[in-house]
């Protein structure tokens, strides 16, 4: 498994590099074929530790992680990658384990795709996370209370202190900060932040909000900045 596939990295017309870590050879191969067909440059690995090494060694635009992996499971790999990288991560989870979704998102994943998936769905998700991490066109810096969000440099500060946010978390905070005081429904946030036009899973939003709170709130258990609006969604207090 540690042996790299000889032709796992193929040059393609676009520059986007995908790391696919998946232990089942058939799924790995079919996903690689599909992604290559869609124009991505794909590197595959069938092992958690090996996948982590590759993620650290080479720069990737997106990482696809299976949960069940030999030597190091997907959540661990995700947490390790997150320590020094904000590369978008998509977990490949089984629908069986609803808990996997939450654990995966809490480990720092940006999104998840449930197995079995059709290639079109996987590719759409990968494109969606890539769009999310793309830098915003020139937009002024938003200041809300002690928060400062600069879309140009992808940086967020709380009372001058630099916040370490993933692409999804940054996008979510930016979306809320564009209209402080306004209530955003989960559906709207799914559309704007995750680029989902269909009925998505609102847990994506809830878990991302929790992670965001743990980074910006003084007391995440009693949020004063990002408030839950019961039955509707979330809003950022004007400060």
């Amino acid at each position: 498994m540690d042996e790299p596939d000889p032709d796992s990295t193929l040059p393609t017309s676009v520059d986007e590099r995908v790391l696919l870590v998946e232990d089942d050879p058939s799924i790995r191969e079919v996903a690689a074929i599909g992604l290559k067909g869609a124009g991505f440059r794909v590197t595959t690995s069938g092992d958690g530790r090996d996948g982590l090494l590759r993620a650290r060694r080479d720069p990737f635009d997106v990482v696809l992680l299976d949960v069940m992996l030999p030597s190091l499971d997907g959540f661990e790999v995700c947490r390790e990658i997150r320590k020094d990288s904000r590369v978008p991560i998509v977990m490949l989870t089984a629908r069986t384990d609803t808990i996997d979704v939450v654990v995966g998102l809490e480990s720092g994943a940006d999104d998840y795709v449930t197995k079995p998936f059709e290639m079109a769905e996987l590719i759409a998700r990968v494109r969606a996370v890539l769009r999310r991490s793309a830098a915003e066109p020139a937009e002024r810096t938003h200041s809300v209370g002690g928060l400062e969000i600069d879309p140009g440099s992808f940086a967020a500060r709380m009372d001058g202190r630099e916040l370490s946010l993933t692409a999804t978390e940054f996008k979510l905070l930016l979306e809320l900060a564009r209209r402080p005081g306004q209530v955003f429904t989960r559906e709207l946030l799914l559309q704007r932040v995750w680029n989902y036009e269909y009925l998505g899973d609102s847990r994506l939003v809830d878990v991302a909000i929790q992670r965001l709170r743990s980074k910006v709130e003084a007391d995440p258990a009693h949020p004063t900045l990002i408030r839950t609006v019961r039955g509707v969604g979330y809003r950022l207090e004007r400060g």
Partner: protein
Amino acid sequence: MPRRGVQPGRLRRRLTIAFVLVAGISAGALALGSYLLVRQARMDDSVGRAKTEALRELRAAGSVVAGAPAGAFEVQNLLAGPESSGIHALFVAGAAGPTPSSPSVDPAIPADLRTLVDRGRLAYRRVAFGGTPYLMMGSRIPGSTDELYLLFDEHSLFHDLGVLRDVLVLGWVGVILVAAVVGRTLAKETLEPVGRASEAARHIADGLLDTRLEVSGGDEFGAWAASFNRMAEALEAKVAALSEAQARERRFTSDVAHELRTPVAALVGEASLLHEHLDRMPEDARRLAELVVHDVARLRRLVEDLMEISRLDAGREPVQPEMVDVANLVKGVVRTRGWLSGVTVEGDGGAVWTDRRRLERVLANLVGNAVEHGRRGVRVWIGMVGQDLVVEVSDRGPGISADNLPHLFERFYKSDPARAGGGSGLGLAIVQENVRLLGGEIEVRSEVGVGTQFRVVLPVTEPLRAGDVTVSARTDHEAQSPSSEGGT
């Protein structure tokens, strides 16, 4: 349940009453018998002593009268004898009225006694005078036609008998009281194992199969408790074996579904790519590829349904309630699955507190089922009835016969084998399990040739969470307080 109609303690009361009755009747009979015997003996004895006394007095009187008719002096003399020894007397001469020895004691002489004495007999009668009971014994004075009646005071005799009677009655009452207490205690002790056994049986009926009775003593109850325990053990073992078998079966189903998951995931990915490349395939291979794509989709549905039902069986499906706009949810389900042309959605349940994914699963399966069998004219109605959310999904399909209706929610049940559709055969079973998980109920009505209607009733509760903010947005039954802060 035969629990109704049983009155605890009735048998105990009956036993106590029987015990008291037996003790009371025997003690009463014994007391009455001894009282009557003593009374008879004492009265006979009194008569005997009176007779001896009377004969002596009569002899003395005979010597006073001594054949001649008694004058006033003789009578006085004659009466002074008994009076001096404490016995009042009456002297009767011929048809004249009686002359008492003491003027204050002058009872009438009973006619039948006079008759007997007139015939020359020694006779007695019991009379009462001035509240004192007397034994009146009379006879002709020897050697004369005059008669002498002697009054023996029986006051102490009757007093003694009265005391005896009172003592016996008191004793009898005491015996009854003691019998009541002893009987009650005995009945309680005797019946206590029955009470314990009935409680143990109730525990077993409630599912506490490890309930056992204490086997105490070698009596009938001890033996019975031992057999009860053997029965409980057998029952427990049987139930354990059954649930173990069921768990094994479910584990197997779950394992099968689990093992199928990875190859199916690969197949689904492969089929989706194959589908994209159909145009580039030669004509004869294309049809086969289409079939592969179609059957992989079927296999995927089956495996996913199998996994869901085994998760539901294992109780591993968490309920995550949130506010859900039901009408929006239904419309979303209909839109995303491409059923817009054949389905009309009516009514509005507003926003309710429930698990979005579970409810979506229920609605998608029901509407999908209706679309598959009803084809056109599927109608979804949503509304609140009291505190419950009600969703009705009706179609105007061929309907389901009454024979098949009760089995509709069984796993892999196909009402018409020839018409087996694209479903896994688990769809309605999954609907039922999910509705149960949400605490609701589902029922189905159908008429052949008219259509079928599924009705889901879900209880909707809305627990308030601290720290949440409530606004009046979109939903009309949300609280009216815009932006009011919750506690904490």
